Structure formats: C-alpha cells, structure tokens
C-alpha cells in the first residue's frame, strides 16, 4: 500500500498545522475595588477647580461634651472661648496613562472576537478598576494604628484590628461597618487560623454566589461583621504585608476628566477614562491612548488600621 492520504501529508497544502480559536480566553485579572462601595468616599472632581488638588476640610463639630469645662462658666463668671479642632487633607490628582499601538495588518488579520483598536479601548477603560485597586492598596501603609507585625494573620490579630477601630480617637470609636482588604496570602493565613479555632461562637460567612456577583470576584465574605476583600496589590515591605481594616470615611478619592481635546481625531469618554485614537498613516499604525486623572488619600486616619503580618 502506498499514497495514503494522511493529515500529516496535507499540512502545509490542504490542512493547517494550527487553527486559532474563535474566542480569546481571558487571563486572570485582579481589578475588584471599593470604588462603588460606601467604604471609599468621592471627594470631588478637579475639573474647573483651579488646582490639581482637592483640600478636604475637617472639623470636630456636633460632639463637644465639655461645654463650660475648664473655660469658666460659674454662676456669674465669664465663659472663655473653646478652641475649635480643625484640619485638612489634600488629595492630589495625577495623570495615569495607558497606551497601545496596533498596525493595520495586525488588526485586519484578526479573526472572530479579536484584538482591534476598539477592543483595546475597552481594555483600557476596564483597566481603570485595576488602577483604582492598586492606588487604594497603596494608601494602607499610611494608617498610624497598626496591628499584627511579627506573626501571621490570626483570629487574635483580627480581633485586635476591630478593637483598634472601636477604640479609635481616644475611645470615641470609628462607626462601622468595617471592611478589610487583605493580600490573598493573608486571607489564607486567616482561613487557617479560623479552621483551628475551638470556639465557634463567631463563624466565618463565606461569600455566596449572589454576593460575588454583586461585589466582585475578590469579595470573600465576612467575619465578625467585617467584609473581606482580597487584592494582590496589597504591598509588602519585604517582611510584612500592609493590608488594612477601615470604616467608611477613612479613604477618599478625587478625579478629573478633560472636558475637550482640541485636535484629537477621535476621543471617547469611557467611564473615568478618556480614550483617544491617534493615527500614524506613514506607519499604518493606530495608537490607542487612555488617560485617567485620579488621586487617593487617607482622609481620616482614626478610621483605619494597618494589618501588618508576615509575608
């Protein structure tokens, strides 16, 4: 027998060595953030404000318990003025940009649901969530209060963090509910510790399917009334992670969006990102550039605590 028709024999002429899939599978991403939750405050837009910085004003109002204490006010004594406690925090917006360039050939050879300038524009706009998650995690090391340190994340450290918030500002206490953003490795440490607990009075409530659908894939449930999110953007200093537990009002962000782009060939406002297309005809190249103006800061240091546990 000879001249059988085989697949191997046809490759190169009648058959392809590989056929690319119609669909592109997405690699794992980590872009869940707290932007649309009550735990992070929007402090304003810098558009038309005369500065790239928003100054958040703070004052101790509506809770003065001293009245005439130490300021006179006996039956006929003149009462002295009390000093008003005030302060401020600056939230500085910064230009964040992300750019890609794709040739016409790369674009025209696309097949099925593939890469083209518009898909890249969508990718840039959705990447804003990852940027927000990254910058949120970057502020955690700024909280003065700290629990943990030379240990892994345990139930004891968890309770210390809750109690630190409950005793914040000389026991005035930060109002709940609280949220916690942990590094995934810290969450694993916490799970191990919970598993070893003999006391089941406080149990861990894992995230339900509905909760994950609503809050994102990195929502992990709640423990002792504190909502847990994980983020790979939680930083470390080589020996310790810098995660945080905090209440609403602890962290705030400011944004900006260019109102008009004179000279831009094509610009799209995609959520918080301004995406522009730029064309280099001599190179048959389309550039897709996204800009987002964002600043994030600790607004009230008393409302958060850093959870530092070993790497």
């Amino acid at each position, binding site marked *: 027998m000879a001249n059988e028709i085989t697949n191997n024999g046809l490759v190169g002429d009648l058959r392809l060595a590989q056929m690319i899939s119609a669909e592109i599978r997405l690699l794992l991403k980590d872009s869940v953030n707290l932007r649309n939750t009550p735990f992070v405050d929007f402090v304003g837009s810098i558009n038309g404000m005369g500065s*790239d*910085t928003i100054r958040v004003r703070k004052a101790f109002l509506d809770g003065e318990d001293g009245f005439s204490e130490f300021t006179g006010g006996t039956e006929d004594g003149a009462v002295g003025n009390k000093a008003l406690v005030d302060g401020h*925090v*600056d*939230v*500085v*917006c*910064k*230009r*964040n940009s992300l750019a890609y360039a794709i040739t016409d050939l790369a674009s025209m050879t696309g097949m099925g649901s593939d890469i083209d300038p518009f898909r890249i524009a969508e990718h840039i706009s959705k990447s804003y969530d990852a940027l927000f998650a990254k*910058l949120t995690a*970057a*502020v955690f*090391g*700024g909280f*003065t*209060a*700290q629990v943990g*340190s*030379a240990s892994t994340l345990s139930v*004891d450290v968890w*309770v*210390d963090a809750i109690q630190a918030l409950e005793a914040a500002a000389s026991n005035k206490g930060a109002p709940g509910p609280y949220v916690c953003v942990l590094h995934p490795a810290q969450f694993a440490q916490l799970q191990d510790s919970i598993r070893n607990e*003999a*006391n089941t009075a406080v149990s861990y409530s894992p995230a339900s399917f509905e909760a994950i659908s609503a809050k994102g894939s990195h929502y992990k449930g709640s423990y002792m009334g504190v909502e847990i999110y994980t983020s790979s953007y939680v*930083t470390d*200093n*080589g*020996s310790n992670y*810098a995660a945080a537990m905090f209440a609403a009002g602890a962290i705030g962000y400011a944004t900006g969006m260019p109102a008009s782009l004179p000279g831009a060939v094509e610009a799209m406002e995609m959520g918080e990102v301004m995406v522009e297309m730029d064309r280099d005809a001599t190179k048959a190249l389309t550039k897709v550039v996204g800009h987002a103006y*964002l*600043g*994030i*800061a*600790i607004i009230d*240091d008393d409302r958060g605590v*850093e959870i*530092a546990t070993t*790497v």
Partner: protein
Amino acid sequence: MSFTPQPWAPIQTTQEQLLPERANHPFFYKWHPSNWTFHYFDKEVTKGKSTKTERVGYFIPTIRLERIIPGVNGVHQINGEQGNPGSRIGRLQQEGWVYLDPAKYQYVHQYRVRNGRFHCPKWQSVRVVGNRVIKSFDRDAFLKWSASLIVDGTLQPIEPHFWELESLKSNKVIGRLQNTQHIPEVKQQLEEKYKIREDMLSFIESFNQKGIEIYKEII
C-alpha cells in the same frame, strides 16, 4: 563588473540583564512612637566561667515603609511615576512620625527592570532561579538596625506606655486560651503566651532600670 563578497556574521546583539520583576516606586521609612513589635534575639550570657546563648525579647520600633507614589496621600507628580513627597513628609511629621531620610541612611537598593526600576530595602536579597525571583528578607539585621536608631537618638520619644498596651493585648489572648486549656495543643500555646507576657514585663522592668543602654546588647 565584479563584486567582492563580505563574510557573513550574525548581528551582534547585547541583551541587557534585567530582573524579571515589575517596576515599583521608591520609598522611605517612617516610624510612629506608638508602633512597636516584640522580637526575640539570641544573646550571649556569661555566668561565672560559662557562656551560653539565650533568647531574649526586646521591644523593637516597627519601622514602616511608605512608597512615594504620585497621586497617593498627597504626593505630587514631578515626572511620570516620579513623585515629590515633600508635603506628605511634612504632614507625617506634624502627626508625630519620624521620617528616616533614605539619602542619609542608605537603605534603598534598586534593580533595573522592564519599564523602570525595582526598589527594595537593602536587607532584601534577590535571586533569580528559572526566571523566578526569589526574595528573602534579613529580618534580624533589619530589626537590629531599627534598634540602633534608638541608641543613636534618632527615634524619640521612647514611651514604655505602648509596651504595656502590648502586654495587655497578650493578656486577652491568654484569657481566651484558658477556656480550652484541657486540650494539650492549646495548653502549649498558652504556656508560650505566658512566657511572652513575662518576657515583655521583664523587658519593661529592665528598660526602666537601664534605659536605652539595654539596646546596645543586641546591635
């Protein structure tokens, strides 16, 4: 017309060796007088003619790292990912933090990576095996440096009140474990916690007698 051929040679390319890590921002260290950690060091103790090594606990200042990221905590953008931390440092100092200038203490190491530099503390060693970055941190050396900043007067004030709060925290854990001390593993944990609390209290007592001189024993 004749042409003289040139010998063929492969194009010489020099590939720069880059660390396979993501670029990150430079940083500075800071310390707040309320941030402490209790850590054990090996100490040589001489009794009579014999010298033996004992594990002795010390309260060590928890020196914390803050990256200089434009747009975060009031850091202004200078150029690209370069930020000016001036106003941030000023604010921290107003709130009681001690700023440890990286230019003065030389604790930042940097490596070239794609799209920038990877900044890490000098106590972190970085190796690459099979394109994977293996990092290890010499915690003991870092903590000894932290202690040396007490001795040279950089970190002030040293307030034992915060150490007492730490020992009170350990009391809570002891109280919780006591409920289940009939379980051998819990009993063992409980004894360890008792030992830590005792060591914390004895350190506070020693500090009250000797002052910051006590830290000279470990640096």
